[in-house]
């Protein structure tokens, strides 16, 4: 079935008559519009011969109706001579469905709109903060009830999440901190060499990893790895109405879903942070021995003599706080999911952004606190 090009043929010295030929279909529509614009705009045709017209589809039918006038009615179809019955049905159907114009789309970009959006954003932020604080309270309350024995600790789930968030994260955490450790050592060496103080590279790596990087890098990695997983798991359960099922079965979603994840992270994040510190120091020591003539023996003895244990505790004390923030934000965002799969994705992103933000914010507050304390 080859297509015939659509054509408008004018009758000689008959300005009110024309003959339409060929196939009036969607692939031809562009040609029809560009080649006979005046026919389609100001049509004074009173008699149109369509006997030799080939195929007609909805696009062609719409153009044909334009030929008939700006607002054709069923009466105007009488102008068409030799119309096939199938085409007549199509035109009649389209005429009945052309009754509604396309409503204008609302656009507003005014100063008022800007203020409204700012107000809404502030309100949302306040609402989210309240929600987070409420959820923290609920979680702590449930945790307390587990501790006094009024609620059960879900041991199997907890161990499962310890494996998923802790053990499975060991390779990525150690590799990453090892690399950052060596980068810090290189950086220190480049600056300190000018002062002949390369040996202080040991302190640089030790202080930065024990106090900050070990725990901070671990927390950021787990926020991306486990916090998002918590949201996705709980969120997809929520969208499949599993949380509703938990509730009507008389169970507690916080006890069942949130506490195992929270406890797993509270235990595993400090352990991972410890590994991260070791791995970072190892990276620093390796760069020291290869590029700076600091032998591993020197590195260890210097570390032992010059670095006090309090730096380690300054780092470690932050780990449970970070773990708590990541777990609570991840679980809460999962609970906020509604309906669609798109919502799961949106809340997963929100969980990662919020938990990393909160971790860094908490870290900054800790830094100021410890500075004031002088530790």
């Amino acid at each position, binding site marked *: 079935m080859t297509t015939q090009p659509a054509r408008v043929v004018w009758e000689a010295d008959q300005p009110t008559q024309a003959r339409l030929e060929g196939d009036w279909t969607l692939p031809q529509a562009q040609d029809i519009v560009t080649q006979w614009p005046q026919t389609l705009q100001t049509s004074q045709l009173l008699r149109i011969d369509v006997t030799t017209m080939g195929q007609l589809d*909805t696009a062609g039918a719409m153009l044909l109706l334009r030929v008939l006038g700006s607002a054709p009615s069923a009466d105007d179809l009488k102008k068409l001579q030799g119309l096939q019955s199938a085409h007549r049905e199509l035109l009649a159907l389209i005429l009945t469905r052309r009754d509604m114009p396309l409503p204008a789309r609302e656009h507003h970009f005014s100063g008022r709109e800007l203020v409204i959006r700012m107000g809404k954003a502030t309100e949302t932020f306040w609402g989210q903060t309240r929600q987070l604080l409420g959820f923290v309270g609920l979680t702590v309350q449930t945790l307390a009830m587990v501790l006094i024995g009024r609620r059960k600790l879900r041991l199997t789930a907890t161990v499962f999440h310890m494996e998923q968030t802790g053990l499975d994260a060991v390779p990525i955490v150690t590799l990453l901190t090892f690399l950052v450790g060596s980068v810090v050592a290189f950086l220190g060496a480049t600056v300190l060499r000018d002062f002949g103080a390369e040996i202080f590279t040991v302190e640089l790596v030790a202080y930065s990893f024990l106090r900050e990087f070990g725990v901070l890098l671990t927390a950021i990695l787990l926020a991306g790895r486990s916090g998002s997983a918590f949201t996705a798991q709980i969120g997809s359960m929520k969208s499949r109405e599993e949380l509703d099922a938990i509730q009507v079965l008389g169970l507690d979603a916080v006890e069942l879903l949130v506490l195992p994840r929270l406890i797993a992270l509270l235990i595993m994040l400090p352990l991972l942070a410890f590994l991260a510190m070791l791995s970072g120091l190892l990276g620093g020591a390796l760069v020291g021995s290869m590029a700076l003539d600091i032998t591993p023996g020197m590195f260890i003895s210097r570390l032992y003599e010059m670095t006090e244990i309090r730096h380690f505790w300054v780092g470690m004390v932050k780990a449970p706080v970070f773990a708590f923030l990541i777990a609570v934000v991840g679980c809460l965002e999962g609970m906020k999911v509604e309906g*669609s799969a798109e919502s799961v994705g949106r809340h997963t992103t929100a969980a990662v952004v919020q938990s990393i933000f909160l971790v860094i914010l908490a870290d900054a507050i800790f830094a100021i606190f410890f500075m004031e304390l002088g530790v």
Partner: protein
Amino acid sequence: MTVVMPEAVLQVRGLRSVFGRQVVHDHLDLDMQRGEVLGVIGGSGAGKSVLLRSIVGLKRPEGGSVYLFGEDVTGLDDEARRPFERRYGVLFQDGALFSSLTVLENVKVPLLEYYHLPPDLLDELALLKIRLAGLPAEAAHKYPAQLSGGMRKRAGLARALALDPEILFLDEPTSGLDPVSAAAFDELIRTLSAALHFSVFLVTHDLDSLYAICDRVAVLADGHVILTDRVEVVEQDPHPWIQSCFRGPRGRGSSGVFSPVRTPET
């Protein structure tokens, strides 16, 4: 073309589909004529949706061939399939609308992709498709999430009709609709297929749809099409699945005139 010649727009020959060790289709043959509404029924897991996906090219069959408009399209790559894809439309179960676009933009997607039309004609054509699918014009600027299930299906239908397809594939269009909406949707398909002259490949569980709009019914069981005929003939067939389907407790009301053999109340 004034005389409609009987012409098979779709032929499936010896189709074989396998998932792992599970054989879904084996030696499956099926024909669909131009202009007809063909219903495809079968139990859950009989492979109705797999058949649809194999025909429209979403799944590569493990054997056999699929002919669309008389040409073998079985092993074609994406590029070679494109000319055929313009000639059929697919309505997925929940409409499968692009959630970030409005209904109007959804309908315009295939038009923009394949043709260069002036914006006013494009809008007019897209709105016509939306109206043909039975939606009010106000729905044009709504996002899929703002529509009810039935409206989403109609919007999906409008997008499937955007390129004036010769075959419309429908995957359980009435599932999830209330009986009134389902009947209205059946009626819509019937009206549109008569006016726009497309053939309909209808995968369904809904016996009412079979009686209401299908010219022929293909029954899928045991991995192949066991019977293709008018629904009045199909319901008389002695095959056990057909009998339990049409004469089971849920089969009675559909045919209206058909009075079932009394089955003992349990």
